[in-house]
């Protein structure tokens, strides 16, 4: 394991410490727990948006706390949910009377803990909480079982823009759900990653192999195969996305090419060339492209493609400016 760390056990705390020191004017924490991260200035009367999840995916999840995006995030250990207590701390801190929307990925630990947190918030603090769950990974057939992966970025972005417009909780929730319903992702991994406390990679993969449909925690994928050309890989990844989305000609989409950790930006852009060709051939119009690391699995090599179907409302919200310590977008 080759990592710039001090001790596997304190990895997440040490990382959080660095984040708070680097962005003292933007991020803070509540209840004396660095894992309960909130935006420094909460807009009064705005619907609060909270997320949460395991560490090891930066800039996911906490990186999207900021103007026009999220208000808080409960941070778990590497690849592990945070606790319901931590979620509740964040919930109370980001609520300013208009209620709180939870946006999180479709994982057992997160679901159970957010559910419990929502119950406690309701019972103990009379905070109204709604939830939208990201299930964008088309590597799984059954839509209910799909993992939440990089596509959650689009849900954050649109919900965050809606909340910034001071829409109410039902409206922000409706928009977040619509965004979640309109994004699909497919990923490929070339190398594994190592949980610091485990100390060795979670799986082995040959020097000439790739794994299609791999999760962002090193969960096994749907097909182990020869590492082929970028063009073939992209074609194989786009097929289930487009099949699942059934986009009619002329539809506008946004695209997210997401590096998993050690795949260079050069390769991500190279892949985008092929994605663009496929979308164009289907008569789809690309409104905007995001390329870079948005949801990683530490040092895993590989990337994912997310396609986000736009309508006028989602497009308008996606185009709004946003600024977090990890992600900045001007008005598009």
């Amino acid at each position, binding site marked *: 394991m080759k990592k710039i760390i001090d001790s596997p056990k304190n990895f997440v705390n040490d990382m959080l410490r660095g984040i708070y020191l680097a962005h003292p004017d933007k991020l803070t924490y509540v209840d004396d727990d660095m894992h309960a991260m909130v935006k420094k200035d909460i807009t009064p009367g705005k619907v609060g948006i909270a997320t949460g999840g395991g560490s090891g995916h930066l800039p996911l999840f906490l990186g999207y706390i900021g103007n026009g995006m999220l208000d808080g995030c409960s941070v778990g250990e590497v690849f*592990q949910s945070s*606790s319901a207590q931590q979620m509740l701390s964040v919930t109370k801190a980001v609520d300013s009377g208009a209620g709180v929307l939870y946006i999180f990925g479709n994982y*057992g*630990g997160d679901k*159970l803990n957010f559910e419990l947190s929502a119950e406690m918030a309701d019972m103990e603090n009379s905070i109204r909480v709604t939830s939208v769950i990201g299930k964008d990974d088309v590597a799984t057939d059954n839509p209910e*079982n799909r*993992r939440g992966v990089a596509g959650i970025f689009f849900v954050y972005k649109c919900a965050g823009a809606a909340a910034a417009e001071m829409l109410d909780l039902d409206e922000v929730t409706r928009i977040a759900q619509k965004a979640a319903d309109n994004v699909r992702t497919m990923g490929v991994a070339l190398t594994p990653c190592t949980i610091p406390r485990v100390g060795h990679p*979670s799986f082995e993969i040959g020097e000439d192999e790739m794994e299609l449909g791999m999760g962002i*925690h090193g969960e096994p994928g*749907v097909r182990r195969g020869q590492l082929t050309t970028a063009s073939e890989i992209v074609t194989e990844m786009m097929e289930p996305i487009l099949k699942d989305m059934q986009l009619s000609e002329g539809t506008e989409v946004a695209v997210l090419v997401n590096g998993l950790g050690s795949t260079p930006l050069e390769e991500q852009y190279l892949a985008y060339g092929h994605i663009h060709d496929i979308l164009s051939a289907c008569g789809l119009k690309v409104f905007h492209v995001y390329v870079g690391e948005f949801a990683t699995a530490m040092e895993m090599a590989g990337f994912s493609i997310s396609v986000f179907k736009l309508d006028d409302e989602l497009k308008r919200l996606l185009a709004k400016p946003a600024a977090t310590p990890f992600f900045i977008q001007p008005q598009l």
Partner: protein
Amino acid sequence: MQLTANDFVRLFQAWTEIINNNKDYLIKLDAIAGDGDLGLALTDGFNAVMASLEKAETDDIGMLFFQAGKTMSVYAPSSLGTLIAFGLMDAGKSMKGNKVISGCDLSVLLEEFESAIMKRGKAKPGEKTFLDGFDPAVCVLKAATSEDEIPAALRSAAMEAHHGAMSTVGMLAKYGRIAVRGEDSRQILDPGAVVASLMITALAETFAH
């Protein structure tokens, strides 16, 4: 059989030990089935529970379980850690105020534990989860109606739990990370069911003599 809070502290000790001893094994199983953190989450959880029980001085069995559940929920917020936390808390609620319970009450405790997990996790036995290691043991214990049957029932519960866990190979997963793999999930041993089997084994070793 007369069980006091002290006996249950011994049980938590046994659970903590068996989970710690199987940490790497659970990591390995979960790396195949899911994300490879099960051994971390549960050792964190049980170690924290043990540390808190050593400090706490309650003789109320219900409070003991409830507190253990709360600690578990903070230190092991993974899927199974959280479900076990729910199980412990509900088991605790059902025993609230009791300072001594009988061997036969064990099955009530475990039933409450199981039904909390079913309520929260929504899975049933046969769906390749923790329950497949746990439920067979509960059934065996429920069938034991007199105190002197309990030691034997505990030993056979441990066997059944083990069989139950093994029988997850072949089952189709509907819950947890492994479910994303559809039909391919059948060939994989469910790590959580193994945890259940380990917990029942430790239970039997603690109380079956």
